[in-house]
């Protein structure tokens, strides 16, 4: 199959003025030619196939949005090649825009003062959507979410969740080949998040739309993506399926423990203290287990360990000998902790 998005050795550099401190420094800056080059994206290559939902992950400032902006044609790469729908995005920005949809979680493309249905009709006209296709799409939307009741509501009066939902629908309206979703679930409550995930999944399924999703919410990733690409400081760290990632960490287990009868009474500080004590203890006893990690979760103390280094039962035995355990759970490693490990550069 032909790929729908191709990135080949793409880099993006920004020239930034070296700022000085204070008022005196501010005056210096007015005449300064002291620039430094920041590599926001460094030599990234990937191919995205039609119909994929690809998670594009990385910590804040990793270069995710910069990559998205290059793929949409807003930014021009410093070097390398990008093709989206067979076009070079920054050279044909407006034509490219006809065939992509974009949602930026914190910005809206809807007409703020107007009822939602006016925005949709307007998009129908400016994307030159056939009346029949438009009707079909609206019917599909109405079957997926309760959008009808929002039609007459001006966008400025909508809640963030309603607005995001509407923005996603607007991005799919002209049935584009690719939709870019830049942190679509940011700031939303749990039920809205799941609503939006279901919607994205359904639209991807119905229309075979390729979706590029950036997010910090591992729930989004688990619910939607089969493939993930991880970048940090502009460099690509990982590009493969989630299963592969999980199997890579197959020997990792999370042991969840409670050391108090009523854990809900414990403060965060107390939990943290427990975790820190346990971490020190385990480090002394099992110096060979390098990847062992202890963290304080919601009412639980989590111990993450690699069974290739140390048997889980051994650790549990040791803990039980030294302190009273009220409750225990055993879990597979979560996507969240895997990705955290990658961000923290704990694995090569």
């Amino acid at each position, binding site marked *: 199959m032909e790929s729908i998005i191709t990135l080949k050795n793409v880099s993006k550099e920004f020239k930034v003025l070296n700022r000085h401190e204070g008022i005196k420094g501010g005056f210096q800056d007015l005449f300064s030619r002291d620039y430094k080059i920041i590599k926001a994206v460094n030599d990234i290559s990937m191919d995205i196939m039609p119909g994929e939902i690809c998670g594009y992950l990385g910590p804040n400032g990793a270069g995710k949005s910069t990559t998205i902006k290059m793929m949409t044609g807003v930014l021009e790469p410093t070097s390398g090649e990008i093709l989206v729908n067979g076009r070079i995005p920054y050279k044909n920005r407006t034509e490219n825009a006809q065939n992509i949809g974009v949602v930026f979680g914190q910005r809206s493309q809807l007409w703020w003062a107007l009822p939602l249905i006016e925005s949709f009709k307007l998009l129908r006209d400016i994307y030159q959507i056939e009346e029949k296709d438009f009707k079909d799409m609206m019917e599909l939307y109405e079957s997926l979410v309760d959008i009808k009741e929002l039609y007459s509501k*001006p966008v400025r009066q909508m809640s963030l969740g309603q607005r995001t939902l509407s923005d996603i629908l607007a991005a799919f309206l002209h049935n584009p080949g690719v939709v870019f979703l830049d942190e679509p679930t940011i700031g939303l409550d749990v039920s809205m998040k799941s609503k939006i995930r279901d919607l994205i999944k359904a639209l991807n399924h119905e229309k075979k739309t390729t979706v590029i999703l950036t997010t910090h919410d591992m729930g989004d990733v688990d619910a939607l993506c089969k493939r993930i690409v991880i970048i940090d400081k502009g460099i690509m760290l990982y590009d493969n399926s989630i299963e592969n990632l999980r199997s890579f960490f197959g020997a990792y287990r999370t042991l969840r423990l409670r050391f108090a009868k009523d854990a809900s009474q414990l403060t965060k500080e107390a939990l943290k203290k427990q975790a820190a004590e346990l971490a020190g203890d385990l480090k002394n006893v099992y110096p060979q287990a390098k990847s062992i990690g202890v963290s304080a979760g919601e009412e639980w103390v989590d111990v993450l360990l690699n069974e290739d280094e140390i048997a889980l039962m051994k650790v549990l035995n040791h803990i039980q000998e030294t302190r009273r355990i009220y409750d225990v759970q055993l879990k597979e490693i979560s996507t969240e902790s895997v990705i955290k490990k990658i961000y923290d550069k704990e694995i090569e």
Partner: protein
Amino acid sequence: MKKKVRKYLTLLRVGILEEMQFRLGAVTKLFGNIIYLIIIYFLWKAIFAGAPTEVVNGMTFEDTMIYLVLASALFYTMEMYVTWDMGRRIKSGDIVVDLLRPMGYIKFQVLSLSGNTIVSAVTSLLPTMLIVYLITGGGFALSYNLLFFAAAIMIGTVLNYFINFFVGTICFYTESIWGINIMKEVIVLLLSGASIPLAFFPETLQKVVYYLPFQAIYNTPLKLLIDNSLSVQSRIGMLGGQLFWTVVVGCISYAFFRISVRRITVNGG
């Protein structure tokens, strides 16, 4: 082709719809305008009272008032706040949404904003003209000059847009718009003849002003409406001049925008 036309008309329509959403805004505009008119009435009354003759620089008090009242109505109609809007959206990074519309940024903006202008023309310019006409008992002719006036407003609106747009583009470099925009407003209001009729300018300045694009925004339409002594030929010439400036400023603004948009760093996440 039909679709293209609909694409453009729909944007005009949305501008009209948007403007009508803000009823209170229209009322405050009207109120602000009335206060402004009271001030200029007394100001110019004092100026004419201090003058030795009834006619100053070829204009009577009544001529001046007709000119200034219509100029202010025209200003409220044609003012678009493009610069503020662009500056704000560049600063917040929201400009990225505008850049991803499936049509050119300039075309998109000009069309959406023209909708607002149409609403203002109907709600503020037309009533003002009617009132002026009734009070002065025919302060301007009701003839083909109205056609020239209408055409000149349309061209002037686009010219005004391009000037605003040029200044807005500067924001890509400065990331701040306040100072530049204030400067632009002062220059445009003064040199376009919107705050003082050009006839009151010193002769050298008048000459300079006629070689600048600003007077084509407000002075040209107003002259075409009020000045009965103009021949049809010179009226067409004035429209031509307006068109000339619109094309020149439009090309410069467009080129400037194209260059600037290539080197942008879109703000925020």
